[in-house]
């Protein structure tokens, strides 16, 4: 390991320091915070020798809204719209994580139909989140066309979710103990019509970009993450499964009504490069979209007919101080975990949200040694890192 780079302090007045730093002939580049391919506001301090990078140090915190501090001020139901903002591309999962954490605190049961509504909304949101991740990754490698195709499909999902809960991005659809609205009439056929269309679009997407030779040459063997390193850095979700670790919270620690559905967990097989390289992460996300379609079809088929969508919850939720609960769900970016300690009266004492992107950022520094700048862009895209989730 080379000597850790002494990072110049960010004193704003003396900007000269940052620009004139020359470390043994290397160039110090500031990639970000406004940069088209950092997926939100992140800054990379890149020490390069020409094209090849010696080291890329991520700097985060530009999007820090301190959601955990707000959690201590809001009532339990009042905090739900804030959880949408933890990861606004996959907001439904953050809602579900928070709802499950508080339901564990209250020790209450959610009616079966509400669980189905949650699963349907979450799986649709997983597809739309993966579409953005896959679309932006293709655009970062240079292929612009797959991005509008992905966004077009995402628009159909946005319309479906808008019809279900009234918002396209920050849904605030779940409530403690159930869901806010029931499925509108005729919703099932709209969703199944979308699914039929979408699976064909997936095949077309694979033909266009996944198996494109330049795409493969750019991503195969790029930053392969061995399984042990992935576990050590606590990578989760598609990043972990691409390295061959068979762990999906929906299967390993089943929650909600997932045990009733059959679906398999795509694992990285190193089809075009080594196991756990950027292409595998890309492929895992494409396959997961297909599996989500399977889950959605089964959820629509087994939808219970009773109309209870809300469990018995007191109007003002008060939980005895000091009780704590830990909930884990399989978000689009992996294992999202809520650690909630109840406080006096109506609000929590401490909320800690552990998201997939945060630990994925931790690994970039180690992986970036020796990559080229174009590869750093591809690596960030393949880890599907989203700024709001890192900074919270």
């Amino acid at each position: 390991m080379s000597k850790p780079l002494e990072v110049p302090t960010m004193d704003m007045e003396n900007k000269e320091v940052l620009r004139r730093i020359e470390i043994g002939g290397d160039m110090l580049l500031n990639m970000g915070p406004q940069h088209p391919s950092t997926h939100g506001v992140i800054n990379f301090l890149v020490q390069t020798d020409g094209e090849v990078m010696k080291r890329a140090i991520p700097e985060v915190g530009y999007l820090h809204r301190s959601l955990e501090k707000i959690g201590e001020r809001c009532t339990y139901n009042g905090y739900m719209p804030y959880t949408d903002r933890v990861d606004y591309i996959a907001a439904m999962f953050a809602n579900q994580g928070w709802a499950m954490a508080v339901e564990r605190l209250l020790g209450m049961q959610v009616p079966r139909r509400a669980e189905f509504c949650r699963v349907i909304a979450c799986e649709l949101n997983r597809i739309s989140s993966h579409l953005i991740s896959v679309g932006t990754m293709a655009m970062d490698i240079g292929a612009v066309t797959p991005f509008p195709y992905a966004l077009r499909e995402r628009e159909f999902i946005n319309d479906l979710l808008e019809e279900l809960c009234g918002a396209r991005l920050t849904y605030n659809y779940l409530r403690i103990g159930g869901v806010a609205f029931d499925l509108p009439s005729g919703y099932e056929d709209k969703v199944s019509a979308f699914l039929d269309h979408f699976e064909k679009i997936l095949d077309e997407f694979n033909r266009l970009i996944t198996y494109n030779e330049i795409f493969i040459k750019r991503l195969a063997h790029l930053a392969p993450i061995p399984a042990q390193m992935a576990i050590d850095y606590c990578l989760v979700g598609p990043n972990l499964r691409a390295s061959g670790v068979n762990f999906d919270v929906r299967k390993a620690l089943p929650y909600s009504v997932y045990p009733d559905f059959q679906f398999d967990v795509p694992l990285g097989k190193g089809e075009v490069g080594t196991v756990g390289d950027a292409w595998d992460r890309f492929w895992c996300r494409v396959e997961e979209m297909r599996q989500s379609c399977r889950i959605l079809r089964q959820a629509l088929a087994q939808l219970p007919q009773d109309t209870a969508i809300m469990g018995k919850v007191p109007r003002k939720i008060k939980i005895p101080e000091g009780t704590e609960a830990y909930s884990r769900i399989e978000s689009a970016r992996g294992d999202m975990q809520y650690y909630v300690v109840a406080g006096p009266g109506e609000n929590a004492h401490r909320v800690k949200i552990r998201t997939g992107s945060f630990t994925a950022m931790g690994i970039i520094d180690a992986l970036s040694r020796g990559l080229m700048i174009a590869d750093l862009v591809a690596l960030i895209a393949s880890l599907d890192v989203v700024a709001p989730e890192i900074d919270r």
Partner: protein
Amino acid sequence: MAETQIPPPQSPGAFGAYVKNVRDTAKSFWEGMSVTLSYMFRKPITSQYPDRMSVPVSETIPARYRGFLEVDMDICTACQACERACPISVINIDIIKGDGKTTPKLRMERFDIDIGKCMYCGLCVEPCPTGAIQHTREFEGAVMHFNNLTLRFVPDVLQPVVAYKPPKGAEAFPRQPLGEITRKLVKAWDAPPPPFPSKEEAAKADHGKPKAAGLDVAAMGRQLAARALQVKEDKPKLQKVLEEAMAGTDCGDCGYPDCFGYSNAIAQGKDTSTEKCAPGGADSKAMLETILVSLKTGIVPGAADPKAEAPPPVPGAAPEPEKPKGPPLSQTLSKDELYKVVLDAMAGTDCGDCEYPDCDGYTRGIVYEGQTDLGRCAPGGEDTRVKLYEIMLGTKPPAK
């Protein structure tokens, strides 16, 4: 870490790899190019908003769309449930209380929603008893000045709007078609900003939430207590008097579907707590207590003999005269009467904050099982604690 991780270049020496590379490239280009060319001959997905739309955009928006908020003031009961539900306090309602005779009982001087700060989460629409506040499907609200983004549903502050009194057991509440009010209120995009006085100017005009004029809580309480005494046996009439002491907004915060339910429960003696009326706040609590005390002791407190039984300390009112040192109620009353008084002193919200399942459990703990910690009723807070010490020990509670 391997120093350089540039992928191993294919060895072109092997002629097979060379040809395979070229063939793979050609095949994948063939596939990719055919897909993009096929899109040349398909209808693009873009709907060309705003002018070349086949169907006007408001039809394409689903019914549950959460656009700008709209309050139909004709059916708004001024219960401020929406203001309390909003996590970022974007709604600002100012209430003027009246005595119901000369001035209407409840008027709204201001009902502002700052749609610039609103996050359209829909939490305010749920608790509204009459569905006055709704999300419209309006979203075109661009304005030049940030302060124009506040919708003012009370048009003129000098003519406050009278709160709506929903008829008993009414299910549907007539309202104007959704969106009309908001569309009128959203200003033209180039409207000039409102002439906000700066903080200093406002300070000169002794700015601050004015004390609601026109309602003397203690006096009204005594009046209602007197009327309650005359109709002591006739439960429905008693219920009417009790309901007058409440805010009358049927907001359901007290746990009963509407004000009738709560006042009827008190009239029948099932519910002795006087604090459940959240919109009524301190005023209606003080009035209800004077009525209950007068019903119990048979004389209107303070009307005939000011010293005999001063009303229990009303928070915020003038400091009441020092109570004569009688034995605390816990010795004088029987267990079940004591039970009723202690339960009456609690918040009655069954919140379970006191580690007892509900208020009834906590009261039984104090009265029967000798629970000594009297400060556990979180929602009741300070004044419940004062009352419990008053009843059980007859002394002032130690400072928190």
